[in-house]
């Protein structure tokens, strides 16, 4: 039995089709990333799984229980942790009072260890919390009853880098313990660091579900370089270079004496980074950066850029390198 099973899940708000026939499943013990741009329908799927929204059509099961059957879902919720995209707690209460309420309702197996890890200021009223602190408190309430399955909606937004790092470590340890993690994100780098498999949603439709490696092979990196030499476009016509843009800047004879040429190149690279570096060794580089491709760029490249792109005609899919 999969931890989460969606079958043709549809949520129609009338003017917006927030989820359109979404089908996938999350296996037990994996970290599954649910990736998509803002407004793609990630939160709608998650809130349907929690029973907060009733699906217009299709079915969803969490830990084997139908989400539209409240009694059954309550059983699943004993083994479920959930962190919403904008977690909110009673503002007049202190963090400690919030934890006490959660402990009373769902139990507390290990809040002490979690508090050492995430350190929300427990004795202050939630009203005085920063966004990051609210999220830290949310992480404690999500994991304190030692759930089998956790659903996290954009879990790291608003966390400082140190805590983000701790959170990533923690999530890997949780997977080692057999916990299933389903989390949404619009940040590709976060997903690549943590996930085993990724589902991509766009405009309410599931575009693909695949292991994270194959997605990364296809998403590529953005490479920017500046070289104190002239580099022709042909010189960069190597495997894995896409969307190449070059410009040449001439610097007039300044302190160095004679004028020189600086070439600036930007391209998306989907090949082997070592091959690229070997290729670039013949040039004297002033600067080189290799960055994660922004998620929007991934969509533009592989699934067509137009908002109106529909599932039947994804022109980009045929040209994807590596074949997925």
């Amino acid at each position, binding site marked *: 039995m999969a931890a989460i099973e969606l079958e043709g899940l549809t949520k129609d708000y009338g003017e917006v089709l927030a989820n359109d026939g979404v089908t996938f499943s999350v296996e037990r013990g994996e970290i599954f990333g649910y990736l998509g741009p803002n407004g793609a329908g990630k939160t709608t799927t998650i809130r349907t799984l929690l029973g907060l929204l009733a699906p217009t059509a299709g079915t969803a099961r969490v830990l084997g229980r139908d989400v539209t059957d409240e009694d059954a879902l309550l059983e699943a919720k004993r083994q479920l*942790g959930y962190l919403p995209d904008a*977690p909110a707690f009673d503002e007049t209460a202190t963090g400690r009072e919030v934890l006490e309420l959660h402990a009373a309702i769902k139990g507390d197996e290990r809040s002490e260890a979690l508090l050492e890890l995430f350190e929300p200021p427990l004795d202050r009223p939630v009203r005085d919390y920063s966004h990051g602190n609210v999220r830290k408190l949310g992480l404690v309430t999500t994991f304190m009853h030692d759930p089998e399955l956790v659903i996290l909606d954009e879990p790291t937004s608003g966390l400082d880098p140190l805590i983000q790092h701790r959170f990533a470590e923690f999530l890997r340890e949780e997977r080692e313990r057999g916990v299933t993690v389903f989390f949404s994100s619009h940040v590709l780098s976060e997903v690549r660091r943590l996930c085993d498999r990724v589902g991509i949603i766009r405009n309410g439709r599931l575009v693909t579900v695949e292991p994270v490696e194959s997605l990364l092979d296809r998403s590529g990196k953005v490479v920017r370089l500046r070289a104190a030499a002239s580099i022709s476009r042909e010189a960069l016509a190597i495997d894995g270079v896409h969307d190449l843009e070059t410009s040449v800047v001439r610097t007039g004879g300044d302190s160095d004496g004679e004028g020189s040429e600086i070439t600036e190149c930007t391209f998306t690279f989907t090949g082997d980074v070592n091959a690229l570096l070997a290729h670039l060794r013949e040039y004297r580089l002033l600067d080189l950066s290799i960055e994660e491709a922004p998620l929007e760029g991934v969509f533009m490249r592989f699934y067509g850029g137009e908002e109106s792109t529909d599932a039947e005609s994804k022109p980009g899919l045929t040209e994807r390198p590596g074949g997925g």
Partner: protein
Amino acid sequence: MLELARYDGRQRLKGSLYLSAAMSLLAVTVVWIYPSFSGSFDDVDEEFLQAYPEGVIQLFDIRTMASLEGFLAFELYVFGWTILLGLYLAYLGAGTIADDVERGRMDVLLSMPISRARTVAEKFASLAVPIIVVNVVTPIVVFVAATLVGEPISAADLVALHALSVPYLFACGAIGLVASVAVDRVGIAQRLALGITFGLFMLESLLTGTDYESVGAVAPMRYFDPNAVLLESSIDPVHAGILVAMTLVLVVTSQRWFERSDIAS
């Protein structure tokens, strides 16, 4: 069970003490001015009642001012309890569910193993804190103040009146609760609850003595009569039962409604 009710109840405790202080202040003021009023007129009732327009007398159900009981029934209980506290409980009731939904707290709450029906019931139950506190503190203050100004009143009547106001105030809170599940914006729910509660009060008061008097039967105010208790020591358990039944119907309606709605994000 009742973890949520206990938690919400605790959060309401401070507000309830402020509320009781305010109502006690109103009570003390009313009791304190009574002797100087009654001392200024030879025939208190004649002169007082003539001074008020007929409509006001009907609206506030003014029976007599010739005794402290009659004066209290109007100045404190019809005005302070039936209207002010009734509206306040409707307002609090309207905040129970809608506020959590609007601020996104309901998502966290319902992610726990707690049903929607239970959430509604426990949040509603937490209204017991202001209702009980204000009905314990104020009668003691009234009794002591009345004794101090030399117009002692029956402790039994006072206790009965406050006991009967408990189901009345729960009924008003339940009106707010329905508004709270019907709309997911707390400001609108509160205005709706205040409007409906005040409308019911007007309906009941103004239709009394007309051909449409029976329409007023839907208003909880019909079943809470401070004059009857204070002036005639008359306690109607049927009325209390009707208020309890009204409350139950409204709470169950709210539960079913909330079970069927999508939680707005």
